[in-house]
């Protein structure tokens, strides 16, 4: 894509207006890795039949152009139709490099481990955007994958095109090397273990480290300012952070945690600012933003796991009593209520996990969808008038969505921390307060 970013910032939209025409014109020239998802291949088959029936000469021209360029590169046009799906999934996913445009990317360090080859460390620029394999690892759409076949040579090897085919409803990527096809596989995930593990500083990890550093810088300087002038009015950064801290304290921590607030307040603050900064950095379209950290289910899963552990490890007698032996409930009903309560222990963190993930990812998908309207209407640069109409439609809507996203970034950070506080508060509540009824 011509700007590998989250297209979610006003600046990007303004730049886009000037860039889209030139970029749209250049779009075909750009060589790209294969985007042949099963849907596209499906469309190709269906489209060919359709074309024979319809009288669209334009469609034939497009198809011919498409075929002619096939050797050089594969464009996103399928039978004159632009399919935004691969672009969107590339943008919301994690990657081993910061893709800027065309073949320009900021490389990131890769730490790859497999049982056979041990540890491989390199920069992702070594893979030359999918043109080279290193120790059986290749880069496919910005993500490192590994050749399964042990007969594939190690070291630096030039490789051909990487193609995606559909085998029994599962996508299989394979690369061409000296006339032979080799299947490649993704890194191990929870529930889907493969032959290797990816411990790289990926895009998301890099951004998380950056956010950590940023938070340290901000909060150490604010803490120093408090230590220096205890009773003075807040200055500079302190003045920006203090209202947020006071708001969290009065709206979230004190009402939910009460007398346990000193113990749990640090976690609530950290989780709030970590999520907020990651949400906001995800809205910046260019490096060092442009990664979708809180829109990644692994990140939100770990955050929810912390809340789950804090809630259940600090849960007191009353908390467990309410789960396994609900007071004031007939014994017959307890048979019904206990399983529901046990499930409730797990659904609370799971809903935390999915809520944050879904909100951020959905926002990004909507913005990317709106931006791809330009290419859908403009047929990826073949119809300038269509692109103009797309821009006229996409710019105000993208702007609107960006404002919504800014609000969502704040609200979701707030929701996550207030729910965490209320779960922990309910689990550690002493009997005296239980009468207020937190159920």
């Amino acid at each position, binding site marked *: 894509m011509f700007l590998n970013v989250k297209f979610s910032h006003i600046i990007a939209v303004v730049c886009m207006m000037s860039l889209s025409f030139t970029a749209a014109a250049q779009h075909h020239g750009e060589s790209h890795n294969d985007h042949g998802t099963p849907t596209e291949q499906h469309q190709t088959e269906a489209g060919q039949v359709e074309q024979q029936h319809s009288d669209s000469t334009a469609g034939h021209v497009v198809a011919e152009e498409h075929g002619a360029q096939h050797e050089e590169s594969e464009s996103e046009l399928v039978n004159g139709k632009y399919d935004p799906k691969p672009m969107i999934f590339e943008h919301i996913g994690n990657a081993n490099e910061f893709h800027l445009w065309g073949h320009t990317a900021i490389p990131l360090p890769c730490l790859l481990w497999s049982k056979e080859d041990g540890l491989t460390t390199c920069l992702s620029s070594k893979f030359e955007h999918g043109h080279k394999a290193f120790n059986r690892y290749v880069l496919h759409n910005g993500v490192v994958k590994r050749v399964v076949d042990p007969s594939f040579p190690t070291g630096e090897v030039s490789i051909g095109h990487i193609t995606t085919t559909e085998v029994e409803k599962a996508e299989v990527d394979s690369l061409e090397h000296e006339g032979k096809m080799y299947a490649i596989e993704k890194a191990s995930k929870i529930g889907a273990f493969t032959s290797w593990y990816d411990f790289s500083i990926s895009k998301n990890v890099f951004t998380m480290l950056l956010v950590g550093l940023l938070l340290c810088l901000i909060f150490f300087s604010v803490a120093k300012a408090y230590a220096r002038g205890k009773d003075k009015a807040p200055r500079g950064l302190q003045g920006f952070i203090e209202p947020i801290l006071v708001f969290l304290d009065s*709206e979230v921590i004190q009402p939910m945690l009460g007398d346990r607030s000193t113990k749990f307040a640090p976690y609530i603050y950290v989780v709030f600012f970590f999520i907020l900064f990651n949400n906001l950095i995800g809205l910046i379209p260019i490096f060092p933003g442009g990664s979708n950290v809180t829109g990644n289910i692994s990140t939100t899963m770990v955050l929810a796991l912390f809340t789950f552990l804090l809630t259940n490890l600090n849960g007191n007698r009353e908390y467990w009593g309410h789960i396994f032996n609900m007071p004031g409930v007939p014994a017959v009903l307890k048979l019904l209520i206990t399983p529901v309560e046990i499930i409730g222990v797990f659904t609370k963190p799971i*809903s935390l996990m*999915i*809520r944050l*993930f*879904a*909100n951020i*990812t*959905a926002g990004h998908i909507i913005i990317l969808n709106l931006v791809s309207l330009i290419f859908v209407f403009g047929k990826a640069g073949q119809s300038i008038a269509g692109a103009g109409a797309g821009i006229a439609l996409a710019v105000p809507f993208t702007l609107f969505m960006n404002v919504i996203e800014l609000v969502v970034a704040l*609200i*979701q950070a*707030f*929701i996550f921390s*207030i729910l965490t506080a209320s779960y922990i508060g309910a689990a550690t509540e002493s009997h005296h307060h239980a009468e207020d009824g937190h159920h």
Partner: protein
Amino acid sequence: MYGAIGAGLAAIGAGIGIGQIGGHAMDAIARQPEAVGDIRNNMLIVAAFVEAVALFACVIALL
């Protein structure tokens, strides 16, 4: 195709839910203008809950 229908149905549900929350919050503010801050906070939280359900449906529809 079915995913899109599912997402649309979820949007209807969420629309009704958020409409109810917003409408009742406006009622409450009209009754007690001095409690506008509390009402706004609670409205946002509950709206986020409703929205989350719709987004769960969207995630399922996407998968």
